């Protein structure tokens, strides 16, 4: 809502503060001023001049040679405007004036005649759109004075962003009322006397409301004998300053009253209404209307329309129809001033994609008490500026009389909510300034009647907010809840948050960069997650958006990995192919029943060089064991021993991973924690990536169930361990995990002797001629440890040999010398 200060002043008894201070005070009372601009700025130098003579240009049909008087001297100006005539008072820009659009006016010869300046239209002045010709300033304009003496120019316009609960602030009177309340001054609202100039020849118009719930009141006022034309400059200027384009005097008056009182009106050409009848009814299926914006619209059965005896002539509260539009030929107008129910207007406006000044106000709740006043005001203005006679009294159909709301405010409650004591008298005074009427009052409370322009004020808390904002939020002290020990939260949220924090540590230690991605993916990306063409995996079935912004963001991602792959694709364009990335975020899935889940995941990606390019590194590329190492470190960081987890070659359910180097990660009880591996060449293709990209995802929920963020101290052995190396040759089909399992499981003999293998570190894996085809050698550094003594060579040797025998027996292992 744009508020023009000269207009606003009309309704206030006191001078306004400086615009910037006014803006600040309004903002801090809840009407946010988003900006201050100046209407008609940059027109210094333009003066009011009178055309004294006006003759055709001998060399050009369309040009006239005018003698104009600028208050000091007379000059000759060549003018091409069609409406220029003798005696007219118009804006003149003498040579040297700079006009909006950086146009410099210069003395120049036009077809052989010297023109000393320029006569101007409203468009050329940058004021409003009008291509009909020169701006006619009217007979009263003072010749020789600056243009801003004749028109309100270079005056401030406040751009107010009224929140949806403040329909009352969508007008100049409404904003003035607010200012009066803030500054404790009074409001001078415009008045218009109900009058009739002539008695109607019955029946001159008829109003019928078929839908009293959707239209509780309809006031119609007829004015006849109007002469349609341009509005006077002052009215055009006010509309333009408030952002509405002048159209013709009758339409302009309806808009003027809209901006003044906040009530939307519509003017019909009464002669174009079949049987001079207004019917407020629902549209019939199949009915069509061409609205004023020249769009033909198919109406819906729940659209409320204004119809004449034959067909719809307006979409109620939204926009008028072209068929009954006020035109140059119009002489009899019917002014509509009605109250339409907000939800219905909003539904209809949305359905037709039509957002108008009118629907904006009805949706938010117009003042149900104002229709008669608004119609009368409009009639009196039309009479004044477009001539005509007011016919009869307003027709006022009022099937649902307005019942004002009553609300009780407990003074103590205000203080309880705000934590700020405000005296009862002040609470009442504030509310009265805002238009509330005191019905009953005692020491503890007051019963108030809510003004009709604030119908959303239905509850005590609404009144408390009113008191608070006018009293000023800055007076509320800053305290902390005194008696609250509340810590109740949701365990899962906190647990995930803490675990995420640990996982970030682990990823950072592994040199990974954290990324944060949109949760979307494209259809192509979804397809690449399917096992084979035509088959569907859970991840290849995505939740689709019904209104995505683009095809690339049409679906919710089913793995976090897809986002990381897209990040890699992006970075490769900038020669950043060595990447280690991770993200903690959600995937979005649904099951056979359509039930949605949003598992939170820790996802990582590694590709390119293992270590950054450096003179100290050899450029080796990352491989499967780098991503596995990261996963193990992440698990360890949240208190899950990676050795207690199993990493097993995948089945068919990870189709986006390479069949030979990928695995599931399972917890100690076999529960699935996640997966990791190299991406499938097909996926790499979709993302335009090279081979050898390694990815992993862990399920936060599963991790969180197993995590132990608070370790328990277990003691440190006081005796030194004995170290022995052991290299065994086994079939290469034997998983290393199996050997390790045998090494670390306690031996009977050792247990008797109180000795165990504290640690078996695999330090070499060898395949090649020396160990033979189909075999490999695994070399371990083993630490033997006793908790109660220093071990001797001979007793560890005995146990070591028992260990070798076990490997030989279980795996057919051979000792490698």
């Amino acid at each position, binding site marked *: 809502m744009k508020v023009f200060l000269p207009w606003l002043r009309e309704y206030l008894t006191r001078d306004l503060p400086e615009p910037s201070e006014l803006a600040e005070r309004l903002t801090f009372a809840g009407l946010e001023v988003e900006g201050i601009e100046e209407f008609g700025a940059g027109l210094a130098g333009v003066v009011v001049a009178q055309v004294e003579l006006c003759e055709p240009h001998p060399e050009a049909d369309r040009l006239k040679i005018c003698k104009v008087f600028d208050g000091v001297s007379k000059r000759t100006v060549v003018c091409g405007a069609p409406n220029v005539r003798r005696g007219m008072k118009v804006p003149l820009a003498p040579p040297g004036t700079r006009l909006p659009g950086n146009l410099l006016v210069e003395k120049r010869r036009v077809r052989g005649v010297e023109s000393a300046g320029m006569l101007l239209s409203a468009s050329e002045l940058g004021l409003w759109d009008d291509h009909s010709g020169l701006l006619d300033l009217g007979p009263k304009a003072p010749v020789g004075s600056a243009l801003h003496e004749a028109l309100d120019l270079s005056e401030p316009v406040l751009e107010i962003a009224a929140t*949806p609960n403040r329909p009352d602030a969508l007008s100049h009177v409404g904003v003035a009322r607010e200012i009066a309340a803030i500054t404790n001054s009074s409001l001078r609202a415009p008045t218009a006397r109900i009058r009739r100039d002539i008695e109607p020849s019955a029946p001159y118009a008829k109003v019928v409301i078929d839908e009293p719930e959707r239209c509780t009141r309809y006031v119609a006022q007829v004015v006849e004998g109007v002469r349609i034309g341009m509005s006077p400059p002052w009215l055009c200027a006010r509309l333009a300053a408030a952002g509405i384009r002048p159209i013709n005097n009758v339409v302009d008056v309806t808009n003027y009253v809209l901006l003044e009182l906040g009530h939307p009106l519509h003017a019909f050409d009464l002669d174009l209404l079949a049987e001079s009848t207004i019917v407020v009814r629902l549209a019939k299926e199949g009915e069509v209307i061409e609205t004023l914006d020249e769009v033909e619209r198919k109406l819906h059965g729940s659209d409320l329309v204004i119809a004449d005896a034959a067909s719809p002539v307006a979409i109620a509260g939204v926009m008028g129809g072209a068929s009954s539009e006020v035109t140059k030929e119009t002489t009899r107008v019917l002014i509509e001033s009605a109250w339409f129910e907000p939800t219905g207007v909003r539904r209809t406006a949305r359905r037709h994609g039509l957002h108008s000044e009118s629907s904006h106000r009805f949706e938010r709740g117009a003042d149900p008490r104002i229709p008669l006043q608004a119609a009368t005001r409009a009639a009196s203005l039309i009479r004044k500026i477009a001539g005509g006679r007011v016919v009869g009294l307003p027709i006022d159909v009022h099937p649902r009389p307005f019942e004002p709301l009553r609300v009780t405010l407990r003074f103590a409650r205000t203080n309880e909510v705000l*934590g700020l004591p405000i005296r009862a008298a002040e609470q009442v005074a504030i509310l009265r300034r805002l238009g509330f009427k005191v019905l009953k009052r005692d020491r503890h409370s007051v019963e108030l009647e809510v003004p009709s322009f604030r119908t959303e004020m239905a509850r005590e*808390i609404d009144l408390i*907010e009113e008191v608070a904002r006018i009293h000023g939020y800055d007076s509320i002290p800053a305290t902390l809840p005194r008696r609250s020990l509340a810590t109740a*939260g*949701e365990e899962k949220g906190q647990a995930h948050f803490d675990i995420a924090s640990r996982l970030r540590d682990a990823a950072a230690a592994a040199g990974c960069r954290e990324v944060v991605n949109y949760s979307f993916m494209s259809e192509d990306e979804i397809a690449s997650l399917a096992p084979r063409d035509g088959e569907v995996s859970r991840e290849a079935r995505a939740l689709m958006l019904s209104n995505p912004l683009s095809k690339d963001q049409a679906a919710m991602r089913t793995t976090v990995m897809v986002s990381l792959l897209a990040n890699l694709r992006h970075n490769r364009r900038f020669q950043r192919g060595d990447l280690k990335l991770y993200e903690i975020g959600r995937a979005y899935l649904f099951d056979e029943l359509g039930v949605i889940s949003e598992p939170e995941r820790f996802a990582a990606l590694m590709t390119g060089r293992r270590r950054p390019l450096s003179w100290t590194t050899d450029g080796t590329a990352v491989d499967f064991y780098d991503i596995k190492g990261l996963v193990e470190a992440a698990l360890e960081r949240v208190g899950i021993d990676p050795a207690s987890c199993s990493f097993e070659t995948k089945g068919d359910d990870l189709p986006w991973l390479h069949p030979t180097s990928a695995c599931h990660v399972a917890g100690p009880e076999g529960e699935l924690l996640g997966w990791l591996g190299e991406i499938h060449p097909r996926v790499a293709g979709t993302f335009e990536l090279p081979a050898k990209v390694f990815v992993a995802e862990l399920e936060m929920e599963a991790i969180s169930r197993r995590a132990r963020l608070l370790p328990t101290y277990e003691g440190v052995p006081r005796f030194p361990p004995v170290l022995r190396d052991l290299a065994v040759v086994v079939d290469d089909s034997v998983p290393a995990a199996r050997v390790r399992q045998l090494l670390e499981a306690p031996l009977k003999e050792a247990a008797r002797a109180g000795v165990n293998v504290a640690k078996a570190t695999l330090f070499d894996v060898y395949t090649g001629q020396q160990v033979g085809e189909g075999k490999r050698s695994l070399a371990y550094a083993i630490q033997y440890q006793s908790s109660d003594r220093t071990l001797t060579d001979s007793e560890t040797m005995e146990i070591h040999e028992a260990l070798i025998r076990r490997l030989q027996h279980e795996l057919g292992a051979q000792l490698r010398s």
Partner: protein
Amino acid sequence: MEGRPTPESMLEALDSAKRTALALIEEALAEEDPAGVLESIRLRFLGKKGEVSLILKSMGSLSAEARPAVGQAANATRDAIESALARAKDTAEGAALDRELRAPPIDVSLPGRPVELGRRHPVSRTGEEVVRVFERMGFKVASGPEIEGDFYNFEALNIPAEHPARDMQDTFYLASGHPVAATLHDGTRGPEPGEVLLRTHTSPVQVRSMLRSPPPIRIVCPGKVYRRDSDLTHTPMFHQIEGLWVDRQVTMADLKGTLQLFATSFFGKDTRVRLRPSYFQFTEPSAEVDVSCTLCGGSGASRSEMEGHEDAGQGNGSIAGKPPQTGPCKTCSGTGWLEILGAGMVDPAVFEAVGYDPDTWSGFAFGMGIDRVAMLRYRIDDLRMLFENDARFLDQFP
């Protein structure tokens, strides 16, 4: 040895051994590796089968009278050789150390072996830091689904269908055919969730938390939210953190105090906070919350050093005598304030929707955009960089 050794011959042999040893030791110092040669000298004379040792062993054949004199001489010879060896060893080691220390220095200018530190994303880091501040105030983290039902995202927050307040948030909807689970994610049954959408704010977590547990409650809910908007200043996904504190006698002054404490903890001790009346369907009274500008400190004027920094890029650098720039601060557009939060007292309608008695319980809620705070904190001027995940961007946040 031919015949029985005489004391004289033994003394002579000792003397000869000593002279030979000392001479060899002297020569050894000129060798490249004196330590090895010295060890061989020691073995030759003092080893178990060394010359001096053999002489000592053969003393058994001497008469008792002759033994002490020869024994003494033998010990003296051994001591002399030993100490000569020790001295020579010291000299040799000293010389070696000397050589090592005088060698040309290594190239200390070669870069060290890189340690990859990893990087935190500025938004995630900011979110975590914000949460940590509230944790210190006793808040617990809560979470909720991003794919929400209309009930939780709008209806229960006092934003009914067809209310103009819905225009404030352009919503993504899921294509039909996917019922969102009508259960809260801890298994409690909730009301019918309605149309399925991407949550437009973190406020539905308030609703879910209150439906799940009785008052009192004190939570923060960080998370992703979605609005159907994409331009220079909007991304379709962004991050919010929601706070909720419900108890008996919680007031708007408490809201102000809590946010003031947050602001000074997070932005710095001189940070000021101000509340402006605003409107949210689920709080009343509602407020927009501004903090004093983190860059200009609330003065609204740009710092000349910042201007100087920007000028440097234009090639005309600092011109002597040029007055310091005093234009408006670019971060707060000269207002001195930054709008970072929406807040208010929980609307009684929300309490009613979740079954809390609004006459017994009161509380406040607030919501903050994490991305914007991150941009302020790190002076990031292009919102879209946040989610492009360009390594050159990420590398700037070690």
